[in-house]
């Protein structure tokens, strides 16, 4: 395989055949649509629509969690990061994986046992319903919005890379099609349809990455060390790509920045609303536990694959060719697929990347819609007594509204540097949600005032710090793309190291300072229910 030839092919234009890419993606859409239609026949009650009738097994839900969690950022992004900056990309994926232990040990089962549909169900269980529910719904919507915007903006970049569409109008059109498809899935299929899309996507993604991993190793005689050596050789003999430090080790600030990011990744995952909501789709806490076990295995194996794929892309494609390709580092995985299996494998990997965006966006949308319809409309506006069927109707309308916002946001953010939004979503989840989840499950004394201060304090501090950080202003590479506008008085790009401890402290201090005691009986009920599963929401009977 000639590296120079590949280099030339990659530098001149997007490789592969756009029509083949579209064809394979179209087949994925057709298959999943049929499944969604078939799955949607029993979508009458809120439990069916939000929680798929609690009918999925641990294995199915675990695959769907992996499908929900392994976003385009973690597939294309991490492979690209390892190919370009070496080892530091892998640091990122380890944080994404270890985070699941928090979900497994502290959150998944207890949440399944106490809640119904949303994160706010658990947080407001023994505190004052209305203020806590509103706060939890707001943080849910904010996290979903940031995450959604990042995915949709990424879709524009993918289009130019995979379909060879470089003009803005064409890209906007594709973003609209992706958004419209997503609305269709979620509107018709509800949680059941969304889950199946995520399961199919997870299987395709992990299988595709697995085949490429074995292939890369085979090309190098199944000798990982030899692969590393050829990656170094293709990077101009730069052995530093095998060691940490190329990306995050450049200065003291960047080191602290990485620790801050690591903290947000590890503590944010178990507080992401769209991940939490998945635990309600299984019948029992035991199945929720199995879901996380499946998810941990799938996600862990996948991230080991990305290590091989990242160095494989460096070795077989070369950092220069990747940097020169449309899409930059994000093109590393598709270009590697092209180098290995030609246009067909490229088409397959491209279609999987699109399916990834679709599946993640669908999961976020149903979470946001459920939070609005269940927490704000049914519980606060209608005081827990909505008319029959009205809640699901509101949820469906919210899906359309969020879908339109996602399309417009994606078109607006296309070409903008919004890569920080995913990290920000994790930081907001870790600061605004996790302290209150942990305190309300494990700390008897915790009260409404503590919850509100912790949630709003974590949310506001994370967002204000990011607004005052170098990712928003101060340089050509920041969001405002100008050196002349500079209000970056906070030096880090990741606010977690400040906002997460702050939110934990606020929840603790405010609870102790305020004299208000909550209903002790409710606390007893929550603790007994969370650990034993008595009174947990049963699966629907059909």
């Amino acid at each position, binding site marked *: 395989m000639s590296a120079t030839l590949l280099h030339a092919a990659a530098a001149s234009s997007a490789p592969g055949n756009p029509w083949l890419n579209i064809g394979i993606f179209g087949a994925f859409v057709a298959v999943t649509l049929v499944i969604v239609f078939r799955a949607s026949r029993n979508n009458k009650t809120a439990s069916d629509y939000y929680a798929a009738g609690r009918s999925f097994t641990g294995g199915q839900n675990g695959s769907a969690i992996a499908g929900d969690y392994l976003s385009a950022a973690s597939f294309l992004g991490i492979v690209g990061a390892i190919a370009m900056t070496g080892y530091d990309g892998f640091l990122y994926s380890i944080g994404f994986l270890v985070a699941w232990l928090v979900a497994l040990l502290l959150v998944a089962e207890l949440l399944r046992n106490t809640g119904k549909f949303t994160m706010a169900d658990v947080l407001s269980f023994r505190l004052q319903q209305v203020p806590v529910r509103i706060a939890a719904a707001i943080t849910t919507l904010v996290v979903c919005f940031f995450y959604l915007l990042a995915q949709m903006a990424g879709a524009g970049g993918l289009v130019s890379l995979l379909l060879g569409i470089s003009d803005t109008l064409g890209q906007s059109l594709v973003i609209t099609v992706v958004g419209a498809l997503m609305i269709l899935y979620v509107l018709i299929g509800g949680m059941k349809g969304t889950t199946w899309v995520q399961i199919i996507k997870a299987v395709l993604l992990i299988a595709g990455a697995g085949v490429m991993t074995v292939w890369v190793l085979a090309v190098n005689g199944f000798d990982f060390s030899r692969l590393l050596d050829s990656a170094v050789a293709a990077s101009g003999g730069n052995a530093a790509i*095998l060691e940490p430090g190329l990306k995050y080790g450049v200065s003291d600030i960047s080191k602290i920045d990485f620790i801050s990011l690591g903290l947000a990744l590890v503590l944010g995952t178990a507080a992401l609303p769209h991940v939490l909501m998945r635990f309600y789709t299984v019948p029992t806490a035991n199945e929720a536990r199995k879901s996380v076990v499946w998810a941990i295995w799938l996600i862990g194996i996948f991230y080991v694959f990305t290590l091989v794929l990242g160095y494989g892309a460096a070795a077989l494609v070369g950092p220069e060719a990747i940097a020169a390709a449309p899409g930059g580092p994000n093109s590393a995985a598709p270009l590697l697929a092209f180098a290995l299996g030609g246009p067909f494998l490229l088409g397959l990997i491209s279609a999987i990347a699109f399916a990834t965006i679709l599946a993640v966006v669908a999961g976020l949308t149903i979470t946001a819609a459920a939070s609005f319809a269940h927490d704000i409309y049914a519980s606060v506006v209608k005081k827990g007594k909505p008319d029959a069927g009205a809640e699901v109707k509101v949820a469906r309308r919210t899906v359309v509204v969020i879908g339109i916002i996602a399309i417009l946001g994606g078109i607006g953010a296309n070409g903008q540097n919004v890569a920080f939004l995913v990290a920000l979503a994790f930081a907001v989840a870790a600061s605004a949600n996790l302290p209150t989840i942990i305190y309300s499950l494990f700390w008897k004394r915790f009260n409404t005032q503590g919850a509100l201060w912790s949630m709003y304090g974590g949310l506001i501090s994370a967002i204000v710090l990011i607004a005052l950080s170098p990712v928003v202003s101060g340089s050509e590479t920041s969001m405002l793309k100008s050196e002349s506008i500079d209000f970056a008085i906070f030096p880090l790009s990741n606010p977690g190291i400040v906002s997460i401890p702050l939110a934990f402290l606020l929840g603790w201090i405010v609870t102790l300072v305020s004299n208000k005691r909550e209903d002790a009986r409710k606390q007893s009920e929550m603790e*007994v229910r969370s650990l034993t599963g008595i009174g947990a929401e*049963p699966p629907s009977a059909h």
Partner: protein
Amino acid sequence: MGNEAPSAEATTDVDFPAVQQSAEFQQLRRKHRSFVFPVLGACLVWYLAYVLLASYAHDFMSIKVAGSFNVAMLLGLLQVVTTFAVTMWYVAYANKELDPIASDIRTKIERGEEVK
């Protein structure tokens, strides 16, 4: 239906404070907490140590173990291995130590018996 758990409405007459005070529930609570808190704490410290080593112990992480395979990669893969191991350990612990007590308490509540 295939699930014996009663709906949320059916549990409103349960005396939760009494169950919470019972020796059996306190044992379940202790067994749960004495596993999850220390184990999770150790895992987070182990992850933090890895991140700090990657940031501040560059020379140590660059030591070659086998061919070009270095300490940094070994520690990264060890993080994956410990995550898998802790997962399986917790599942085994929960199946053996937590689930029997939890289901016993649940059965007693459903039958209207006193949890001691």
